[in-house]
């Protein structure tokens, strides 16, 4: 990972993508603008409660601009199931859905009689 970064570091301009965050019934949705990033050039990594998102633009060819590397991290609420995270990419927009787990919802704990 570090080797890749070192190799590519001089070529990319690191930026923070603009995001919207929504909450729906049973899920959170993160939407991030990452123009020029193909699905294959995107990495999403969940490290404990930190969700790290990184996407590299395809080299712009002869358009004469430095490619961008979009990077951002999010703190994910503990109620999100680690296996309940999905991502999709369309027209340079990344959508990440984080589903809340059943066990994080308010629940009643029974007190047993001694």
């Amino acid at each position, binding site marked *: 990972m570090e080797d890749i970064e070192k190799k590519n570091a001089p070529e990319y301009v690191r930026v923070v993508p603009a995001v919207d*965050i929504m909450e*729906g019934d049973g899920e959170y949705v993160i939407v991030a*603008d990452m123009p*020029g990033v193909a699905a294959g050039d995107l990495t999403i990594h969940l490290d404990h409660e930190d969700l790290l998102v990184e996407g590299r633009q395809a080299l*712009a060819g002869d*358009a004469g601009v430095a490619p961008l590397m979009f990077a951002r991290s999010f703190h*994910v609420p503990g109620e999100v199931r680690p296996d309940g995270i999905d991502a999709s990419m369309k027209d340079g927009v990344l959508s990440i859905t984080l589903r809340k787990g059943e066990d994080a919802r308010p629940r009643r704990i029974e007190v047993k009689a001694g």
Partner: protein
Amino acid sequence: MLALWRNDLGSALDLFDRMRREMDRLSWDLDAGFTGMPRVTLAEKDDEIVVRAEVPGFAQKDLEISLDRGVLVIRGERKKEEKEDRKVLHRERGSLAFSHSCTLPCKVDGAGATASLKDGVMEIRLPKAEEEKPRRIAVASA
């Protein structure tokens, strides 16, 4: 036995406190800035002008390009795609419509212009008008 019970209760309380804090919502780092503005760049080649515009979330049908007296105008309008039942916790992404104009550095052949869109990046290629192209003068052999 009693000590074990206390430990269990202690961690249960910890968990509740954590849950309450985390239910507060997602947090995010804001240590680096972003502009939210689409990046548009123009490059002049020998025989063409290449304009590259970053237009995430805009489909081909949402974009319009016009050329009038040396000014290129890119307009975009996208539909709101959010579901009604979702609550917005945080918003940074740009508006649903934009207009960007740029003055071209030379005359172009508008009829020969092409535009392509891939992964939210539009590339417009405008061939230079004949009189603007660098001329090669052939040396006739004697």
